[in-house]
């Protein structure tokens, strides 16, 4: 779960979900799938519809079949399964570039086409580094350091990259 916005709300929200995930594991003897967590996050956000968590989230993970999924949210819980997304202060800079590079199929097509990104892992990571380096140039709030979390069948891995410190 990646969150942008008011840090105290972000921390509180992530702590809440971590606690709920632990309870789930106690009750179901398994990890929550990404779609399950996606619904939980939406419900948690909407619960505070009239005093929101000032938190803009992107949820990424694996579904029950082991396929990758990405969910994008607003502050009050509207969510959608997508092939890629960005949120936060740099999103206006990043999103158009992602649209250009990843050429998502039209949402109007029938039958609905799954927006699976046709990139290899190395290409995807490179793209992420590129967008953040670009966003750092023009967004005053983006910069210092980037953390990339890679989730696949082998597990979870983290990579770090320095960004402009100005």
């Amino acid at each position, binding site marked *: 779960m990646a969150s942008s916005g008011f840090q*105290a*709300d972000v921390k509180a929200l992530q702590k809440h979900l971590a606690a709920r995930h632990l309870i789930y594991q106690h009750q179901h003897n398994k990890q929550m799938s990404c779609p399950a967590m996606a619904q939980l996050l939406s419900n948690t956000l909407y619960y505070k519809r009239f005093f929101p968590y000032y938190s803009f989230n992107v949820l990424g993970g694996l579904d029950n079949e082991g396929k990758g999924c990405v969910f994008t949210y607003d502050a009050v819980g509207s969510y959608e399964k997508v092939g890629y997304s960005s949120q936060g202060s740099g999103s206006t800079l990043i999103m158009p570039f992602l649209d250009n590079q990843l050429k998502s199929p039209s949402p109007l097509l029938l039958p609905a086409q799954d927006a699976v990104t046709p990139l290899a892992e190395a290409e995807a990571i490179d793209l992420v580094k590129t967008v953040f380096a670009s966003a750092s140039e023009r967004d005053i709030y983006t910069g210092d350091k980037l953390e990339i979390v890679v989730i696949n069948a082998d597990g979870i891995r983290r990579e770090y990259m320095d960004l402009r410190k100005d």
Partner: protein
Amino acid sequence: MNFMASKQPENSLLSPESDSQRTLYPYVTGTSVVALKYKDGILMAADMGGSYGSTLRYKSVERMKPIGKHSLLGASGEISDFQEILRYLDELILYDNMWDDGNSLGPKEVHNYLTRVMYNRRNKFNPLWNSLVLGGVKNGQKYLGTVSMIGVNFEDNHVATGFGNHLARPILRQEWHENLSFEDGVRLLEKCMRVLLYRDRSAVNKLQIAKITEEGVTISQPYSLKTYWEFSAFENPAQGAIGSW
């Protein structure tokens, strides 16, 4: 058209009448606290000023206090709210001691408690108007964290509140390193406090430096920093052009 007109319940803190029951602005305030991790534990510094707006009202305010066996709390902002927090922590430590089970709250736990208190008060629109620095050592593990009045919290190798964030942190980012000796740590803190003394109008030249290690807490006697005002730019400042700074 007002779709979401907020209906105030009777016990709301947001009606005009209840402004007398929540904090709107601070009155007596303390300025920056600066702290860093060093070889044996944490070093923390704060001056002893209690300002009443632009008046320097109180000059012997202790803004750093030990908490339990393993922690040290420094506060900036409203002094009365700091005293309230000390009462909360007093009760917390008391109940912890009354278990009499050999376990005691470490700095991480105290920091977490403070975070929850500050965040929950912010959510009720009645904040404790403080920025807190919580440092300590337990079982050889050093910990240094900070919480603000709106609940923003994190831990780091060096932290500061208020003006300290703008004037002291950049110095610390350049000059802090792992395993600073006590003397080097004090020197570094004094460098930060001196800059704050020159540039923060609420700073006073009477400070304490506190040390916390596995052995315990020591808070120094109050002392003053040497300042230097003989820079040539300050002599006849109007000569060059518009000023010395």
